[in-house]
């Protein structure tokens, strides 16, 4: 898999690149700002671009803006935003328009290369990826009244995995359940939360996330 990395912090940029190379990935570019990122994506056409949010010149959200524009301009180039911010808002900005081939992970995931590589693979295959910490926070958020609290423990697990962008198959693998059971759970969850049962994987992720963020 070919990836490019954009991060203005040299240590993290080089360290991540090394980590991925050790894991057997092909790092085809390392840049330190959004402009260079857009240029290298245009020239290298990587499978996934790994992007930091806060970069020069304004140090606010230019990485996110660049990621949105990559997703809009290159349908086959995936984007993984690696961020220090635990903000579902940023994740939603990334996923909202083009949920496929997009991912948002907290930066500390670099401590486990397996997680990182798994996320990159899922993105390259067209899934969307959301950091479990962000999802856990959304699921646990106090609500009044709280339909999420009405779910069974197992259903909440399944709900979190849906929000993380896992496919039915991945869920059944992770929870060691039969695909049929997973489907039943999902049906239960969606009806309890009053969400439309939809076959479209991406629409389902977005609907669940929107529900968790705003209800």
């Amino acid at each position: 898999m070919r990836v490019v990395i954009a991060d203005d912090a040299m240590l993290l940029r080089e360290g991540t690149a090394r980590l991925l190379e050790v894991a057997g990935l092909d790092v085809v570019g390392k840049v330190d700002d959004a402009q260079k990122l857009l240029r290298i994506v245009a020239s290298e056409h990587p499978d996934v671009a790994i992007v930091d949010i806060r970069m020069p010149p304004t140090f606010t959200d230019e990485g996110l803006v660049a990621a949105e524009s990559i997703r809009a301009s290159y349908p086959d180039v995936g984007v993984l935003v690696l961020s220090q911010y635990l903000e579902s808002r940023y994740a939603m900005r990334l996923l909202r328009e083009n949920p496929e081939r997009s991912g948002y992970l907290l930066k500390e995931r670099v401590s486990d290369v397996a997680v990182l590589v798994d996320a990159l693979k899922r993105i390259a295959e067209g899934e969307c990826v959301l950091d479990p910490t962000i999802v856990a926070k959304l699921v646990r958020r106090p609500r009044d009244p709280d339909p999420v609290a009405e779910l069974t423990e197992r259903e909440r697990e399944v709900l979190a995995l849906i929000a993380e962008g896992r496919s039915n198959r991945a869920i059944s693998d992770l929870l060691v359940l039969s695909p049929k059971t997973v489907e039943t759970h999902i049906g239960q969850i969606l009806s309890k939360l009053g969400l439309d049962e939809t076959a479209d994987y991406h629409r389902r992720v977005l609907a669940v996330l929107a529900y968790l963020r705003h209800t």
Partner: protein
Amino acid sequence: MTLVAFVPRRLLRPLPAVFWAAVVGFGLLSLAIAVQFPGATNGGRSVEAAAAKLLAGSALIGAGLYLSVGMRRPASGVLFGLAALAWSVEEWNNPGIGVGVAFTLGLVGHAVAPAVVTHAVLAYPFGRLASQLERLIVGVAYVDTLLVLGLLPALFFAPATHSCHLCPPNLLLAVDNSQSYDSLNRLGGWLLVGWTAAFLALALRRVLRASGPSRRLAAPVLLAGSAYILLVLVAARGAAPGVNGAGSVAPGLWFAQAAALGVLGLAVAWSRLLRHRTRALMAGLVVELGRSPPSGGLQEMLGRILGDPALRVAYALEGRQKLVDANGKAMEVAEGLAQTPLTREGRTIALLLHRPGLLDDPAVAEEVAAATRLALDNERLHAEVLARIDDLRASRSRIVAAGEAERRRLERDLHDGAQQRLLGLSLALGLTRAQVTEIADSTILTLIDDAEERLRGAIDELREVAHGIYPAVLSSDGLGAAVDSLRERASIPISVTSLAEDRLPGSVESAAYFLIAEVTGPIAVRAGATSAAVDARRVGDSLVITVRADGAQRADTELDGRFVDLEDRIGALGGQLHIEHDEAARLTVRAEIPCAS
């Protein structure tokens, strides 16, 4: 020189009535003579001449009376009265006067009118001569007209020798000497040319040099007086000395002189008109001020009354470079505006900025200052207080802005510093794990997992600290996003009814966010609230934020302290905070922050 100036004031007081009666009597007597012996008057034989004599005299008497009584300038008024008197005496060397004493008086005083008019005009309106030059001119004029053209020739004037057989006896006749008489008259004539020319030059200079206010007041008087003196000068060059009626003055010139004196009287009345107008205006002002304090400020009222909508009232406050308006706001002085200080006891209370020429009469400015005395003081104090408040508000908002900048800096430092270092550690751990996976020593892997867990805890904690100091999403995505983020972190459910999604000024967003964070966070927890509701919407130019915490049972001094902090922050932006803690354990905090900044 000034006759009146030598008379003690005490004696002067009962004098006016006697004086003015004498002047009027003299005038009427002169008129009687002129009418009785029209052939021997300067104006010739006509009703018009009598009327001219009467009108010019009346105008001068009127001016004198007005100055004495109406304007309380008795010194100046008396001079105009004397001028009227002198104008009458011109007729007394009329052969038809019949009485020797009167005729002799006429011989002495017949030429004195121009000198008195000169004195009256130069001394107007205060009755004092201002400079040595003026005193010299007036002195020479009196010497010339009373002595050289009056008393001295009279000593040598025998009426019969000058073929005036009807003339009464000259009581002063010492020696019948025509030659001396003619020489003196010639000398007097030359002197007359000298001082009248000097007067004309001086008067012209004064008209040209005077500043706006005094010019408008004095110029008509100076010009009318100059016209009269010029006519006297012209007449003197063409006249033969002698008694009246011998064609001593061309009738046309004489009429012109009478007219000039009439105009002189009117010129004095003109200043009265100016004054009158001011008085009427000020009366209106006093009435209005008495009714209620002006709502649109003194400025609007003065502008309306004085007829200058662009008029501005400015106050100079101590320790301040710029002038301020009634609201204490610094104001720029527009180009082309005149400034009139309103003073009291030598102190400038306020400045009127107005179109040039509006307040040329210094009396008007005085009247304005007097009429608006209380209102001015009031408004000035008010402006001072408001200016101070503005200063305080500005310094308070600078402090809050500095605090906020500090928060942002801290958050950035954490992000680029400590957080970055911990992430570096994560990376190192990741690389280590990748290396040892092949060895697959489970103890080492467990140790790494353990380290990773602790590290993640540290990163998490630090992230929350940074978020609490200043949430990055607030500056990048605005208030709505920041409140969403708050809801995901809160320990009690926070519902949002409405949240302004459009971006607001940074300081407003920050203040609103920290208010919401404080009330739904520490305050709600402290008060024991079980849920909270947030509403933030634009109302006009303000952002109105309502935060309600339900089930807030507790109230204590720590909460009060937190409310004071909130009030300070909102107040620094010129906003207002309203806190209500009702019976139903509902704590409602309502803030209104102006957004127009």
